[in-house]
């Protein structure tokens, strides 16, 4: 059982952050669309690829971000649980308090492979892995309290898992001035990027249903059916369109539409795994009979596609001599392995106490599906090179024992 729990945690330790991300976005809790420049603009708003920008390169693996989070248990609760000899009712309720129907665990990672920008163009590659999983609160209540109720019904919405890993090779071009805008109005520049995606693997729950009942009249009955699809080796595509405008010297705005035609087609080896177990009206007195009807199977299936749901992002940023403030709103069109259908708002700020030390702060407001995220970052600029690191806390303003997740990122830019 312990191994099962650990396995489940490992499986779920990658999850969605949104569209193709970059490590540096963690510095600002994803309020990063108008802050990305150079190579990173490939992923955030290619309209910001500017002819006037210096050339930039990504050192392999220098940009690195990883996170793990869950929706209910913070470090304080974890420490409390593992330090208890015996869990009492109040302790169990503390574990279950914030679950809201399911324990949802997510994780992910992003890593730069290479990148180069010159003028208004950039080409880059990164590796991405996301995963998320959920297990119903009812399962955990069963594990902690036993079967106190007559009926437990489990739904796929609270019991699922998915994971995907892929690399991208992205080309972007920006700084394309949109014509016919009167000169006395702020000019709008457009850009686009296109990504070739090489899928490594994709695992996802296809359907799940389950129940467990027990009472005097009908005995114990249970039913569990789960089908999961696995794809190994695939390729795909996605593209992004973005516009950007410097409304004033201090104010910028931008809009992007990401994941246009986004999909990965899994071609190399695809399989459908299924498990089915059911037992009806079981009584301990007849448990020696052949009471459980179960079957597991796996079969090769045709190639299939994992679609990357389109995602709309809008952002504004106020710039000042000593810093900047930004606000991003992102709205996925539907749920997918890399997107959430629930919109979220994030704010970012950067401060330059000295020209060499940029400090960053980001807040992404939580929603029913996404926790509050607060980021703290610090950097060091020396001539054309900048190095930074950031720490992000989930569901807690200060990273610490109240956090329900943590993200860590490092970033290095080299311009010339």
């Amino acid at each position, binding site marked *: 059982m312990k191994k099962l729990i650990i396995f489940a945690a490992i499986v779920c330790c990658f999850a969605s952050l949104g569209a193709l991300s970059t490590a540096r976005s963690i510095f600002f809790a994803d309020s990063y669309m108008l802050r990305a420049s150079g190579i990173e603009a490939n992923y955030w708003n290619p309209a910001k690829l500017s002819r006037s920008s210096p050339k930039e390169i990504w050192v392999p693996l220098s940009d690195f971000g990883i996170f793990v989070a869950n929706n209910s248990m913070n470090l304080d609760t974890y420490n409390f649980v593992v*330090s208890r000899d015996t869990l009492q009712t109040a302790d169990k309720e503390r574990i279950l308090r914030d679950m809201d129907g399911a324990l949802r665990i997510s994780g992910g990672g992003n890593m730069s492979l290479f990148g180069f920008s010159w003028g208004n163009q950039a080409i880059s590659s990164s590796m991405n892995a996301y995963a998320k999983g959920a297990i119903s609160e009812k399962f955990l209540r069963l594990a902690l*309290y*036993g079967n106190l109720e007559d009926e437990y019904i489990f739904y796929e919405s609270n019991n699922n898992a998915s994971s995907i890993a892929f690399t991208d090779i992205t080309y972007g071009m920006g700084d394309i001035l949109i014509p016919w805008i009167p000169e006395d109005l702020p000019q709008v520049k457009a850009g686009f990027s296109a990504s070739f995606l090489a899928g490594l693997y994709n695992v996802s729950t296809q359907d799940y249903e389950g129940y467990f009942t027990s009472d005097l009249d009908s005995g114990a009955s249970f039913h569990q059916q789960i089908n999961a699809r696995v794809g190994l080796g695939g390729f795909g595509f996605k593209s992004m369109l973005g516009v950007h405008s410097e409304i004033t010297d201090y104010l910028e705005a931008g809009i992007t539409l990401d994941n246009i035609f986004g999909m990965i087609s899994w071609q190399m080896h695809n399989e459908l795994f299924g498990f089915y177990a059911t037992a009806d009206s079981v009584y301990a007195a007849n448990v020696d009979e052949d009471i459980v009807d179960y079957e597991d199977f796996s079969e090769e299936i045709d190639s299939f596609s994992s679609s990357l749901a389109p995602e709309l992002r809008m952002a504004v940023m106020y710039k000042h001599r000593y810093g900047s403030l930004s606000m991003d709103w992102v709205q996925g069109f539907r749920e997918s392995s890399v997107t959430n259908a629930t919109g979220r708002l994030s704010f970012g700020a950067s401060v330059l106490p000295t020209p060499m030390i940029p400090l960053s702060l980001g807040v992404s407001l939580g929603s029913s599906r996404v926790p509050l995220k607060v980021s*703290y970052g610090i950097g060091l600029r020396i001539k054309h090179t900048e190095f930074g690191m950031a720490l992000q806390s989930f569901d807690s303003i200060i990273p610490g024992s109240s956090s329900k997740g943590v993200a860590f990122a490092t970033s290095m830019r080299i311009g010339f």
Partner: protein
Amino acid sequence: MKRIILFLMLALILLSACEIKEPALPVWDLDLNIPLINERYYVSDLADSVNLIVDENDLMYMLTEGELDTPEVGEINIYPNLELFDAPVLSGIEFSQTSPFMADEQGLHLRYGLVESGSISARFAGVDPATEILSLSILEIHQPSGEALVIEYAGSEEWIHIDLAGYYFGALESAQDLSELTLEVTATSSHPDFTPIAEMSLVMLEPVSFSVFQGDFENYEILAGESVASIEIEYPHGIDEAVQVSEAFLEIEIVNELGFECEFIGFMRGIRGDLTRMVPILDDDGEHFRIEAGSADEPGYSNLLIHDGLQILMQMMPETIEIIDARFIIDSQSGSGMMRKEDTIRADYTVRVPLRLTVFEYPITIQDATEIEVDEDNRDLIDKNLMGAGLIMQAQNMIPLGGTAYAYFGTSSDIDVDDPQSFSFVKSLTLHSSQTSSDWQEPVSLELSKTELNLFTLPRVYLKWSFVLEPSDGEVEIYAGPDDFIGLKSMLHAKIRVEDI
């Protein structure tokens, strides 16, 4: 620069404040509710076709069957007393005389018989040489062909011994007793008639055994072997006080191969432990039964039904029932008849006790405690992981018997339900009879505390059952039809300590 260092230190302090403890799983208790059973236990399932049966009206019976038989009656002996010595035989004269041959007071009268063994001896002495023919015929002794026994003088004056085996005495279906033999003497010689030419002697004193006997007896007794019928029912202690059977029947089917009506004498004896009870087998008038005689073609069949006194016998809940001192008597009332040496009398008897009972509130205790072995794995589980247990039971009783069951648990088999020191704890469960309610009764709960459960950490635990029946409202009948059952639903509740997953 100082501000940078200050900021970095602040970040380090924040991060270092995040202590992540080593993963360790605490223990916790959870409640498992496990449906245990949902069954109907039909009374008809108790019927074993041996000791518990169901009649055509679905009424349950307690049944005991046994057999009783006599040995083969064997040969019937008569004791002749025929002595005739030196009777003169006259030449040319055929004479006939009758001579009694049976000893007095034998208690039987022969009319016809086939000799199995026996002999008769004759001698002709002082025979004149001029004798031509000298012979003796006994008309009542004849061969199967009907030819009478003839003893002829053959030149020797020694005794002539005749083996009578295979000879018949008398005439079949004769209405007259055979008590005398008719002797016919034939003698011729060259002497004038009436000249004495020899002396004749005839002796028959040895017993004559008949393999077929026709006649009558004044008092002939045939003993039956003893027959024990066991009842494979383990009666709990006190059942005879708690339950009163209303009636009991003994049915005896007798097959009599003898051609005589007999009087049947015997006793039914019931035994349970040291307790013995015996009742005579009598008809409703208090007389001994008489059983039908067989005929030449088929045996006689008698069906005896006895109920007087049987209720008393069965009330003791015997473990064995036997017919003892059984015998069949052919007497003067039996009249004339025939028997063969291989004839027997067989009896099949059945004791039927309808489960028509009056129930009293009296404790019934199963005599022997049941030993429960608890293996080591389960002992460890109970010790470490089982914090409490209980049983929720709901019953529907369609049987007019109810009561309270008491389960006494102890560490020794010497559980005395009246001595609290002899057991560890007792649990009880009440099931009302259908006279009270035939609906589902209110669920009842049996709970075992951790202290009580710790008893099961011992390798052996003993359980003794005791019952107190619910007194019936008058007489109740136990039927075994499709609607006669006890429905039982049960849920096992256990508080489990999750210690090491």
